[in-house]
């Protein structure tokens, strides 16, 4: 059988179209088959929603959380890369607010204000707020940062192109560009630990239970008890990011 050019193109075009649609259909079927399935047998992603509490009134600023976080998550040791850090607030009599965080609090804090009269003072631990409406996820041009069904905002290291949009977009300064991996890095609530029944490293080492983590869908979880028993505030509520990091003992000067 012989085709002229036109006939050949017609037939070839049909094949390409049919093949393409078949591939799309197949992809969608795959999607339907795996959507909502648990990721591993022990961990049920659907029955979890992670929330995290920070009790400012308990924190003593020992910085063990910062140290443990760096060791657990291979965060570079340099003093400007942190997944969690502790800020020191000192509010003077004249209303002046002093905030600092030498090496993120990793080496503890010296008694810098011993000659000042502080009317208020706090150690404020900070981490990624795992927002319900995360600005970082919205701006990522390649879909390399996302919120999991159990409420944790993560980074896809294979797809991240290191463009730093998310770092700029985060109103909490919770992200940095990893100098060796060249991808955005941030607190993952130790996703590799909490999904295996371990505590995040920072929660594990906190000596005064200033950090609490748990399942918001479980009415008997530590975090639910913490939320029910205390007056809770979140950071920068006016931005509408809806953080899932809940603070107890937050004052208006803390931002």
């Amino acid at each position, binding site marked *: 059988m012989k085709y002229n050019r036109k006939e050949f193109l017609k037939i070839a075009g049909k094949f*390409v179209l049919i093949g393409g649609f078949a591939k799309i259909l197949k992809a969608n079927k795959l999607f339907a088959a795996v959507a909502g399935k648990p990721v591993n047998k022990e961990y049920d992603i659907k029955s979890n929603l992670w929330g995290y509490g920070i009790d400012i009134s308990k924190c003593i*600023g020992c910085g063990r959380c910062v140290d443990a976080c760096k060791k657990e998550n291979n965060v570079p040791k340099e003093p400007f890369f942190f997944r969690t850090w502790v800020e020191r607030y000192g509010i003077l009599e004249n209303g002046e607010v002093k905030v600092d965080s030498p090496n993120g609090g990793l080496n*503890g804090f010296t008694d810098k204000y011993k000659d000042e009269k502080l009317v208020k003072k706090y150690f404020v631990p900070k981490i990624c707020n795992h927002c319900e409406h995360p600005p970082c996820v919205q701006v990522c041009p390649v879909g390399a940062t996302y919120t*999991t069904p159990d409420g944790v905002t993560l980074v896809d290291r294979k797809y991240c192109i290191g463009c730093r949009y998310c770092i700029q977009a985060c109103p909490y300064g919770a992200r940095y560009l990893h100098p060796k991996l060249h991808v955005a890095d941030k607190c993952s609530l130790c996703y590799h630990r909490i999904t295996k029944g371990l505590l995040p490293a920072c929660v594990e080492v906190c000596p005064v239970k200033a950090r609490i983590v748990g399942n918001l869908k479980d009415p008997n979880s530590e975090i639910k008890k913490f939320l029910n028993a205390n007056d809770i505030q979140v950071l920068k509520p006016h931005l509408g990011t809806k953080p899932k990091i809940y603070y107890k003992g937050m004052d208006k000067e803390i931002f």
Partner: protein
Amino acid sequence: MKYSYKDYKHLLRLLAIFLLGVGVFLIARALFTPASFGEFGHYRGDSLRENMGFAAEYAGMAACKKCHEAVYTKKSKSKHKGLSCETCHGPALRHSLEPKKEKIVKPGSKDLCHLCHSINSVRRKDFPQVDFKKHNPGEDCLACHDSHDPL
């Protein structure tokens, strides 16, 4: 006026090119979209599993009990009951799995106790703090305080 086929033939050609374009786009999308995309949401589902699979360093206090029962029990009745073993000893998951091979640090009091117990005007007043210049200066804290049962 009457139109004949040849008057709108060019439109059909245009339509064919347009459809071809759509087809090429859909095929390219299907080819380049990672298989696990959309599994949980608008991202690569495998990334979530990769994040789950990162290696841990900290074992958690429960792990130490099995082999260090005595220290564990002593500490759990002491003023340091709220502290995890790894708060002072550092990450010990690898030690827990292979205690003979993976040694862990016995921290000296010099770099340890001051983190929590040095006097600091920002630290809450109800937390026990000592002035290191006045509280037995020059002596090792561990000479008088057992780190697993300090008082």
